[in-house]
């Protein structure tokens, strides 16, 4: 299949280059010259960019197929312009065995939509006690190791896990949350939680855990990626750690750069998220840190939850929101608010996450895999359950009008989604 995309506004976040022009695709890769194209696409008014890369998208397989399936969520991914995604290991069973990882990758490959990069469990069953066979899991295709949202209460186990991972150069992805301080909490410990009578998770549950992680990185030099920062204090800690030269990167969920605890309103269970939505000050610090590069990239933290899981009083509701199809609109909205150019905006969901994953993607150069997206940055998209391809219909943005409509998604040169 040879493609010729013309009249596009081509944005390459990796190089920062932007201009109008044409691009050729041959044999699944970006090509220098067209030759005779099988299909010519007139992309007038559309942006052509590398496909988006999401560092946290739950596909719910295996084990939670009633919430979502690989089919539904990979459909949602490509509809959102996402061509590569990392999925956390909190499936049932957890991704702690090579066979499971292998099966997941095969199933995903057979569907030939977005590329799936499994993140393996750091400890067996995510119980925080015994290390997994990271070598074998890595051979099976795991790109990193994590506890997802499961606590790792024993700092000695964390220390050993980082030593072991550092020995072989594996990346470890960690959420920073002290399990004891967060115990029982469902909302940011502050004025809103006090008013609503909801048990709180203090901001220092994050900074204390992050302090521990950073000390252990200093000791072990393990490559650690900190997932879903939620507090201004954590941003400061990461900024200092990076200045010091520690091998640390981090991301933020897009909900947390747009929303805060005030959005809980009258107990909106759509806003029950992990980590919890925090104060306005935290939200603003996260949005700024993402612009400054202290936070390396943004992710959707896509977590499909079924209706029953949300039709509950706030504290009993299941945490999480659908996000793959909102990745682009929410990133554009953030970039606009921060007055960033399109290339710098898109870098947070293309070249930056590619760097963290260590994959050859997220840039527009001849010879690179043709994982591409064409989108209309001005198209208004109304977020409704019917419009979402994901089986998870819950998001705090239900009913919102957001800008950014994906028109075409290519993975390895194949059209996997077309609006």
């Amino acid at each position, binding site marked *: 299949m040879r493609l010729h995309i013309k009249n596009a506004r081509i944005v390459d976040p990796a190089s920062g280059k932007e201009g109008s022009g044409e691009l050729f695709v041959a044999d699944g890769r970006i090509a220098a010259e067209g030759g005779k194209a099988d299909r010519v696409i007139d992309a007038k008014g559309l942006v052509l960019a590398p496909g988006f890369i999401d560092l946290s998208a739950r596909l719910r397989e295996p084990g939670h197929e009633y919430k979502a399936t690989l089919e539904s969520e990979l459909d949602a991914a490509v509809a959102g312009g996402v061509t590569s995604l990392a999925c956390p290991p909190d499936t049932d069973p957890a991704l702690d065995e090579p066979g499971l990882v292998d099966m997941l990758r095969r199933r995903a490959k057979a569907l030939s939509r977005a590329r799936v990069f499994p993140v393996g469990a750091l400890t067996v069953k995510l119980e925080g006690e015994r290390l997994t066979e990271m070598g074998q899991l890595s051979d099976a295709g795991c790109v990193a190791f994590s506890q997802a949202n499961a606590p790792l209460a024993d700092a000695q186990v964390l220390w050993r896990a980082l030593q072991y991972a550092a020995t072989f150069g594996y990346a470890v992805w960690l959420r920073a949350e002290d399990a004891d301080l967060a115990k029982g909490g469902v909302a940011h410990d502050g*004025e809103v*939680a*006090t*008013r*609503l009578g*909801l048990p709180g998770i*203090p901001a220092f549950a994050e900074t204390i855990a992050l302090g521990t992680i950073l000390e252990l990185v200093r000791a072990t030099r393990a490559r650690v990626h900190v997932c879903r920062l939620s507090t201004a204090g954590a941003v400061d800690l990461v900024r200092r750690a990076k200045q010091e030269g520690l091998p640390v990167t981090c991301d933020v969920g897009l909900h947390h750069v747009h929303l805060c605890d005030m959005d809980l*309103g*009258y107990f909106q269970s759509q806003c029950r998220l992990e980590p919890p939505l925090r104060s306005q000050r935290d939200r603003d610090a996260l949005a700024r840190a993402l612009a400054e590069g202290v936070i390396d990239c943004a992710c959707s933290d896509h977590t499909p939850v079924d209706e*029953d899981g949300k039709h509950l009083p706030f504290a009993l509701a299941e945490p999480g929101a659908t996000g793959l199809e909102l990745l682009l609109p929410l990133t554009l909205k953030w970039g606009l608010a921060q007055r960033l150019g399109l290339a710098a905006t898109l870098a947070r969901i293309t070249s930056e996450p590619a760097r963290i994953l260590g994959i050859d993607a997220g840039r527009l150069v001849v010879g690179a895999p043709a994982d591409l997206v064409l989108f209309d940055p001005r198209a208004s998209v109304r977020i409704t359950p019917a419009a979402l391809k994901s089986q998870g219909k819950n998001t705090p943005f239900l009913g919102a009008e957001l800008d950014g409509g994906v028109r075409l998604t290519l993975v390895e040169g194949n059209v996997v989604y077309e609006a």
Partner: protein
Amino acid sequence: MQRNPQLNEKGELQHLLSIEGLPRAIVLQILDTAESFVGVTEREVKKVPILRGKSVFNLFFEPSTRTRTTFEIAAKRLSADVINLNINASSQTKGESLLDTVANLSAMQADIFVVRHESSGAPFLIARHVKPHEHVINAGDGRHAHPTQGLLDLYTIRHYKKDFAALTVAIVGDILHSRVARSLIHGLTTLGVPEVRVIGPQTLLPTGVEALGVRVFHDMREGLKDCDVVVMLRLQNERMRGALLPSAQEYFKHYGLNADKLGLARRDAIVMHPGPMNRGVEIDSTVADGPHSVILPQVTFGIAVRMAVMSIVAGN
């Protein structure tokens, strides 16, 4: 921001979910209506036909005898049919069944749901799903709100003290876990009480409680100085020993109300308690049964206030 879910399009009380956000006029309407019902409760025939033919469902997902009984009496004095349902919360972990329960009762032609639930916000969820002619009254949700208790406290204060604008009110004890405290604080600030104090150790005060419009005191003697109203909160048994407090004895030493400490308040101060009391833990018997105590009148007024709330929502 969404519309206040308690009010209908005309701004009238559709549900009573929380005192927070209630216009002052509605709070006063409830208190005035309650006043007219106090006479009824003292008559020989204690019934009025206001809710005749209407069904009140007492939906208690958390055990309670006291509050449920007062709602039952209030509804019966309004001539309503009352159905009591005690639903074991542990068998109710799936929310579908919470809403299913409500949908089923709704199909049996309910008019008013009186809801108590251990999880904050549960009555809001139910209010979002009931039919337009049905009303939800929050009888206590988690730590969040207990609006009829707050209103009966306001009624009691008005009965003895008249002018809210000249009062100093102290609420003492476990504010962190108390829906009673939250509701009363909102009520007092809505009615313009210039000084609301909360008194307790840091472990029993929620983060940022000052934002509710209260002054924080850790020293009870200092906090009680010149108070017109002292509200003692119940300390749950399971919180008396552990990381929150070392012991009931030590708690009583610091925060228990005895005649000596009460002497620091104004001479005509009243003492209130939402009940049930732990004598010797948060309050000394000499005070609980003493001349300043209005704890039993609170219970009597509580019935009139609940009659007022039910008759007002049913009329809107």
